[in-house]
């Protein structure tokens, strides 16, 4: 038994180098840290929105899809939202149908329970922008203001979105209450094998709206995410 136990100890020790490092965790924590004493309260919606906006901004650099400088859609808009489903590539809904955060369909053919997006690279990604104002009385029905299919660095997108920390029980959202432009985004992801998923995020002046796949405040991810300019 002792020899067997020693072998177990050696086997465990032999995998030490494979473990993640605290410095990576610390670096990620610093990137998502909100002002002091509010870490557990509102870093998640801030981080999620910033993450997705960073991904969108980096991916669409120079194409002026962001905010109110949106350009018309590059191709004819569909008359109605096309739900994401296995084997059906997402296409941009003509309108952002409800108050943000909203997605047109539940994840299909992929694990949508554990993280904002699965930790695997999609085969395609489509970003849809819906520009408006956070002062608007009616924040539903905003028209599609632009869309782009991402053609590169989908692994980078996955790396950012799948590292998003999940919301903790009891967390609350705090809004700055600043009026200004607001752009709602939908990101339609298609995975090898046909799985599809929508993620939504809002670029909002007061950062009140969390990113979500399901409902307000339901950020079901579990990873630290490194914020900043996408690679």
């Amino acid at each position: 038994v002792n020899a067997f136990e020693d072998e177990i100890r050696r086997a465990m020790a032999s995998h030490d180098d494979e473990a993640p490092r605290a410095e990576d965790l610390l670096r990620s924590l610093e990137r998502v840290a909100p002002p002091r004493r509010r870490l557990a309260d509102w870093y998640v919606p801030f981080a999620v929105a910033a993450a997705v906006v960073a991904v969108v901004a980096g991916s669409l650099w120079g194409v002026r899809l962001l905010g109110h400088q949106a350009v018309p859609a590059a191709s004819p808009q569909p008359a109605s939202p096309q739900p994401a489903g296995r084997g059906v590539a997402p296409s941009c809904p003509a309108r952002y149908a409800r108050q943000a955060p909203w997605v047109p369909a539940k994840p299909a053919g992929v694990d949508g329970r554990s993280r904002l997006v699965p930790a695997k690279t999609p085969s395609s990604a489509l970003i849809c922008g819906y520009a408006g104002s956070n002062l608007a009385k009616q924040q539903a029905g905003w028209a599609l203001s632009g869309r782009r299919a991402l053609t590169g660095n989908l692994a980078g997108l996955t790396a950012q979105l799948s590292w998003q920390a999940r919301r903790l029980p009891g967390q609350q959202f705090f809004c700055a209450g600043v009026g200004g432009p607001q752009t709602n985004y939908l990101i339609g992801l298609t995975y090898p094998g046909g799985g599809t998923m929508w993620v939504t995020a809002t670029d909002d002046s007061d950062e009140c709206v969390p990113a979500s796949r399901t409902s307000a405040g339901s950020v079901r991810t579990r990873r630290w995410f490194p914020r900043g300019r996408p690679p």
Partner: protein
Amino acid sequence: VHLDDVLTELVADSGDRLLRVAYQLTHDRGAAQDVVQDALLRVYRSVRRRGLAPEDWYAYLRRAVINEYVRTRRLRSSTEVVTDMVPEPPAAGSLEDRAADQAQLWAALGELSERQRAVLVLRYYEGVADHEIAALLGCRESSVRSLARRGLAAMRPLVAAASGEEDLT
């Protein structure tokens, strides 16, 4: 904006060690980070609320890691992908044999129940005494011994099957 000093210290003081323990438990880098992340935030709250002494941080964090691992693994057990593929046994040779043995042991550890694995990791990786493991897991010391005994017993045939040997001493 800088990270709260308490959380920074928690990570700086105990992060590497906790991540290694979590990796021993989960055998997955992402899952290890998840477990430690949750443990850090739970203990962070306690530190802020109850003023835990720094010398107690690691013990609380380790307990939180163990609890989080057991809890999440149970929640996720239905979504795990199982496979009947086993690693190819390597060619004869002492270094390769040793590496193969360790790989088989590592794989066999991954097949244990979450509580069995927690007991073995705490006992053989962290060097924690059985009575302390019992306190960590919230069970009796006899239960810890039983979990360890059953875990070791479960590993032997897995290792023997993978190596093609009938007995392992």
